[in-house]
């Protein structure tokens, strides 16, 4: 057992060293760090406003009321912020490719994806997640929840699955960047469009949107479907899905990561090097 833990600690040592250096470097520029923190929180607040303003106008949209949509927003936004912190900067690959610096990553004895993830881990993104967590607390109070094992289990499950699904989306996008060096906005359409979609009730979507953001990129599984199962709303049945569908969020994680792994593999294999 102690053998295993020493092995584990020696294997993770390089990552810990890199991460600690990132933390220190960000704390050293205090003024810009504060502006960054402030803007990160503001992003969250504006996104919350976009969603809630509409629900203040009418009682229900797509079967959700304001309280329910707060819960959907909280889970998807927390999930997206955490994933963004860990994997969001992976889509800077085109910058590395253009500058020819991606080749440097290949020379180091660490997996490429892990190096990319630890290359720009930013503390300010935690501030972004704090908006989601704050809304989550409010949402858990204002919704009429019976606190039993099923409620806690489903909440915990969705809070684990949402960041994993979004992280897979970032990795998928990073893999696609190898092909679309100049077309980053194409993947952004699905990454940021996916974030936007995840805060909406899937019941308002047209068929094609349901295919793209319900199943290909399983955004409906991050928050909407777990919430309608949790609150016992008719959202799932409106889509022709069973009411327990919220419990299948882990399947969405598996599917999303399969897609991400494929995209990343193809991308890395496609990359020919910057020459030099």
């Amino acid at each position: 057992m102690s053998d295993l833990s020493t092995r584990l600690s020696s294997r993770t040592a390089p990552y810990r060293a890199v991460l600690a250096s990132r933390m220190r470097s960000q704390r050293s520029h205090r003024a810009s760090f504060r502006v960054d923190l402030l803007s990160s929180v503001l992003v969250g607040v504006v996104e919350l406003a976009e969603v809630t303003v509409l629900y203040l106008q009418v009682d229900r949209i797509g079967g959700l009321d304001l309280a329910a949509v707060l819960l959907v927003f909280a889970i998807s936004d927390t999930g997206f912020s955490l994933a963004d912190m860990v994997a969001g900067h992976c889509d800077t690959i085109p910058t590395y490719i253009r500058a020819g610096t991606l080749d440097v990553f290949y020379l180091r004895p660490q997996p490429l994806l892990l190096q990319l993830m630890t290359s720009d881990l930013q503390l300010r993104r935690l501030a972004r997640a704090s908006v989601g967590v704050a809304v989550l607390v409010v949402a858990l109070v204002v919704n009429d929840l019976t606190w039993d094992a099923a409620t806690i289990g489903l909440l915990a499950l969705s809070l684990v699955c949402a960041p994993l699904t979004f992280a897979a989306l970032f990795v998928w996008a990073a893999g696609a960047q190898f092909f679309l060096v100049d077309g980053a906005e194409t993947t952004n359409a699905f990454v940021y469009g996916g974030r936007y979609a995840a805060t909406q009730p899937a019941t308002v979507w047209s068929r094609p949107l349901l295919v793209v953001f319900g199943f290909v990129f399983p955004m409906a599984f991050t928050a909407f479907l777990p919430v309608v199962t949790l609150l016992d709303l008719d959202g799932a049945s409106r889509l022709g899905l069973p009411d327990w569908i919220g419990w299948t969020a882990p399947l969405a994680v598996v599917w999303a990561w399969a897609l991400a792994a494929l995209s990343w593999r193809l991308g890395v294999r496609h990359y020919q090097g910057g020459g030099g």
Partner: protein
Amino acid sequence: MRDTGRVHWRLLVAGFRRQSTYRLAALGGLVANTTFGFLKVAILFAAVRAAGGELEGYDIGAVSAYVWISQAMLGSVNLNGRTDLAERIRTGDVAVDFLRPVDVQGAFVATEVGRSLFAFLPRGLPTLTIGVLVVGVPAPDDVAAYPLGAVSVLLAITVSATTVYLLATAGFWLVETRGLQVLYMIVSGFFAGLFLPIWFLPTWLYAVVSATPFPSMLMYPADILSGRVDGGGALLHVLVQAGWLVATVAAGQWLTRSGRRRLEVQGG
């Protein structure tokens, strides 16, 4: 006077041409604009239906027009605050711009407007076409909406350029304006009416929003072209836009002059 006009025209054409080399980027922009367009249509249609067919003066047709016109303009108005000029001020390269016999603000705005006008070809028109074909966008009742709308779009593009110019000139004092630019990006989209028509906002927030130049960059031309306002209302929108143009140009001139005195060239 005629010479300066010709220089600015050339810069405008150069901005237009430069943009035409990024074809894949333009296609990416089109995919992003239409994807968000469909998502916005879904939620706003549902909201209007939930309100009984009309919400703050918007019916289904008006919402569709708002979504697709604003998505089509998105590639042409600068709502992210990013400019080459900010970088040139940071590094001190802007000193070279001051040596040229062309007004720095005028040159920047002409190039920006050229770039923005080009964006209508690969991004704006196809986005609108997809919206018209797939979702359906009603035409405005009043034919005057077209010429007035065209003027309004041009004003929107120019106001967005003169406003991001102000943002960049903050660099004369702050040097690093990246944080400011991120703040700008967050506020401008929301205030310009990118996510929701600003008429949906609570009264107090609407009052704050209308005291900024942001609605002039997107909401007002969308209102005119969708036929939500016509006649006197449309004319008033255009006048407000023109007012913001004059104000931002004047502020830009003043900031450029005082910034030039502050300018410390890094190295060399």
